[in-house]
């Protein structure tokens, strides 16, 4: 498992207050929404803030979110391709 994926899991657990989860509980491919981690619309906003704050990525097209936040793997791929810090 790459450091970025682990880092993302740690950040998500911390910033979204998923206190009953640990890094090892989150698979790279598990859906972040719906039946996966069960994140909600406010969590999406937090993830958007996290992308900007931690990786310098500003999302301008809301439709992108569905694909980018599909899983840890998808998020990591997007960050690796677009990060500015």
């Amino acid at each position, binding site marked *: 498992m790459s450091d970025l994926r682990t880092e993302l899991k740690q950040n998500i657990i911390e910033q*979204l*207050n*998923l*206190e*009953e989860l640990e890094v090892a509980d989150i698979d790279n491919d598990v859906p972040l929404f719906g039946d996966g981690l*069960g994140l909600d619309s*406010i*969590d999406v*906003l*937090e993830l958007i*803030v996290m992308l*900007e*704050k931690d990786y310098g990525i500003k999302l301008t097209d809301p439709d992108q979110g569905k694909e980018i936040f599909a899983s840890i793997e998808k998020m990591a791929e997007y960050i690796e391709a677009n990060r500015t810090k």
Partner: protein
Amino acid sequence: MSNGNYKITDYVHIKDHRIFHGKDQVFKTEKSLGLDQFLKASYKKLEIAYPKFHKMDGLCKLGIIASEVLFKEHFISPDTALVFSNSASSLETDKKHQQAMGGMVSPSVFVYTLPNIVLGEISIKHKLQSENVFFIENQFNAELLKEYAEVLLEAKKTSAVVCGWIDLKNAKYDVFLCLISKEGEIPLSKENLKKLYIFENE
């Protein structure tokens, strides 16, 4: 207005690291624990098992804990109304949001910058689809709560009302919620509400 039909069916207090159900203390922690630690310990003790709890602000966590204790021994109809009040509104979360405004604000903090969000969180958790209102008052106002609860019950808007006081300011909390219905022994009156409220506040 008072027709003597309604009773204070049950009540809960949360204050100074203690939780009372009626007059019985159901949980207590060391006074050295901070608010977050007390709330987390209460969540575990009450076996709430509701992960969304951890995302809530302090006021909502207090509301969830209090309603969990209050509803435990009762069937709660989806039309049960919520009539809450406090003096600090959502000040704790408002301050947190204000402090973040210099940089990037947190959406999950911002959503709790209204006191009535606690009503929504309790309604979601207990599947209530009912009337609700949140009053900001200088202090516990028994007359207002009694009158408003009676109006809702008399208008057949609801079969029961949860009313009371849920205040959080500078990490000090004072919660008194009671269930009003036709069941129980204690008549609903301004005097009785006041007496029960000050039970833990003397």
